């Protein structure tokens, strides 16, 4: 994990560059939590900084440098939040740079996060099957990677394991052959009713990306 002081500095530098009033959100929040790749010390040149702010603004600022999500104190202790995929991720991988992590131990996945993930994965499979021939090469690669990552996340949620940053998912995909076989099997199950040509092509693309040093965004 990255240190609190390093992340505070990174957030401050990002806020100085932003056109939005990020310093205002920082000052007006009772909790600030950095999560995602920055919190794990896995930043790359393309990485943004993911920040959860606890305040009443309801804002969500998203650009290439920062993804700043504001939620209220009431939301923070709601069952909906505590059972969510994002709360699970932040509780496991977040670094608090301001305030107390009082809700961290209350996070419990329930069926809703898993159901949503299953619906999402199925929807991608159906939509990709219907549009595959229209998609250009960059999109075919993009969605092959996206589908694989979503299946990895679904497998983790099924085991009640918090979702790690995407770079950790990618690394596991590259370096763990047994895990890669399980993911491939899940894809083949998911696409068993699809056109055979589409199913085999997407599985092949997913497999090819194991050898890539860096994925498309």
């Amino acid at each position, binding site marked *: 994990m990255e240190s609190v002081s390093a992340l505070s500095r990174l957030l401050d530098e990002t806020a100085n560059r932003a056109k939005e009033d990020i310093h205002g959100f920082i000052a007006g929040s009772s909790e600030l939590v950095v999560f995602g790749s920055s919190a794990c010390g896995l930043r790359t040149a393309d990485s943004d900084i993911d920040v959860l702010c606890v305040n009443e603004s309801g804002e969500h600022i998203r650009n290439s440098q920062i993804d700043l999500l504001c939620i209220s104190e009431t939301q923070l202790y709601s069952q909906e939040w505590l059972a969510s995929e994002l709360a699970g991720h932040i509780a496991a991988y977040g670094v608090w740079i301001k305030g107390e992590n009082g809700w961290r131990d209350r996070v419990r996945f329930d069926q809703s996060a898993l159901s949503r993930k299953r*619906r999402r994965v199925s929807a*991608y499979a159906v*939509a990709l099957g219907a549009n595959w021939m229209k998609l250009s090469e960059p*999109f075919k690669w*993009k969605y092959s990677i996206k589908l694989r990552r979503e299946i990895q996340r679904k497998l983790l949620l099924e085991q009640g394991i918090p979702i790690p940053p995407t770079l950790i998912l990618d690394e596991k995909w590259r370096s763990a052959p047994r895990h890669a076989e399980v993911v491939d099997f899940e894809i083949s199950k998911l696409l068993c009713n699809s056109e055979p040509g589409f199913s085999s092509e997407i599985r092949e693309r997913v497999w090819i990306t194991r050898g890539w040093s860096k994925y498309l965004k």
Partner: protein
Amino acid sequence: MAANSKTTKRRPKGPSLEILKTLRDELDGIDSILPSISDSVPNEEDDSEMEITTTSIEAEEVEVAASALVSTINGKLGDESDAESFGELFADIFGDSSKEAELAAEFEEAIEGYFGDLFGEDLDRASELLYDLIALVKARIDKWNQ
């Protein structure tokens, strides 16, 4: 020469008619999978508001259809566009500060969502934005036909 120039039709600024027509058809295709705005209008003879049937529609279907649109239009534009997203495509075609680019970027945000249900996508908003976008494209086609 002077008489000829008076009768020559001026070509509207911006994208060609062919691109606009393809864009309209592709946008209509996405519109057909989104919940209709009219579905949420209350029936005057019935007190209960009609439910928008969203159970069979997932934002991912709309997202992939939007990517297919970008692929199709990029293919037609050739070197004129290498857009990687819906918002970028409209900025390439109509200009960064155009209303079309602004609506397309908002549409993208509406279907994107964030980490599952809690900060989920807003398909009703996406439907409204798409309606406005189609209207703008159709208005441009009408200019060509005048």
